[in-house]
């Protein structure tokens, strides 16, 4: 069974897309969890500032999410463009 070059490239792109999104999801997941944990701690200490803290948490999480979104973009590029 001879495997064509184009087939190998496509196979590598699919596997690469899976790896990119899979591994790329680890960091943001843990980081955003830490942010949420600390926000809960802060709200436990100072419930009056709950609104401010929630907003800050969401902004912080959105920033730490950006690497996850990069992985998503790279994975989609690998799947549909390359």
């Amino acid at each position, binding site marked *: 069974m001879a495997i064509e070059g184009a087939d190998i490239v496509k196979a590598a792109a699919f596997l690469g897309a899976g790896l990119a999104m899979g591994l790329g999801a680890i960091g*943001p997941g843990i980081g955003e969890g830490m942010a949420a944990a600390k926000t809960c701690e802060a709200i436990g200490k100072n419930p009056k500032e709950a609104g401010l803290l929630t907003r800050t948490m969401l902004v912080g999480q959105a920033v730490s999410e950006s690497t996850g979104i990069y992985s998503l973009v790279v994975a989609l590029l690998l799947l549909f463009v390359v």
Partner: protein
Amino acid sequence: MAYDVQTWINLAAYVGGGLAMGLGAVGAAIGEGYTAAQANEALGQNPEMSGDVFKSMLVGQAIAESASIFALVIAILLLFVNPSAPSAITASSLFGAGLCMGLGAIGSGVGSGIPGGQACLGIVRQPAAAGKLTTNMLIGSAVCQTPAIFAMVVALVLIFIDYSNAPLFPTWAALIGAGLSMGLSAIGSGMGGGFAAGASCEGIARQPESAANVTTTMLVGQAVSQTPAIFGLLISFVLMFKSHEASTTLSASMALLGAGICMGFGGIGPGIGNGMAAEGAVRWVARNMSHAGELMRIMLVGQAVSQSTAIYAMVISLVLIFVL
């Protein structure tokens, strides 16, 4: 050098069985070690409580052990299984089953050791709350087993379902992918559930009257931490039960394998992160009971955001399976 199909099946089954037990022992050993370490620390603080601490250490370890017992069952099945319709796909399904159970037992083993250890420390700190602590520890570490149970279900399906009519070429990758998807994504969820359960035992020891609130928050937090493992279960069900079109190209196989790898790795981070969020919320529900509802809501919002990367991974996996 040509081998017959039976040789390949035996090879896959034995390697899979070895991996199932070898990897499956990692988590439970770490978790039980943690429990024992905390129990010793507790005894150092108050040697008179040795009877109670010893008892709850053993109970905690017995539950933490169950993930590796699941792995043992699967490993034994793999060593002695006698497939009714042996074909080349059977080899890949048996290997996938071993991989799935081995990886899937790691997280639950580590996670369910944590509440046991915290319960031992808590009993010394607050002997009057020993009953509440033991109940909470049992519930917490039993819920931690859920990802391992999912992994066992996938492994059993892979062992017992007959794939001999399916086309070999993309299906072999789909079955290994199914194992990887469930096994890897169970790691994060198991550990995350353990963080939440540990914090709840600590919290109850600090503030025994908060037990009901703390247990409820812990259960919701653990349930949400399990979501990545559930996505992994979904992807591996799709990979196992969808009828794949025959195609000898390498790319068709790699798309299915890639889908499994993507969801598997993608579930690790969000599982751990959700567990941390739940840990923070549970800890502070115990200290500030009057704001329990608010804390639970913030926890859920934080977890929902931290889960989004697992959802991206699921989307990519589904695209790999259905679109390409």
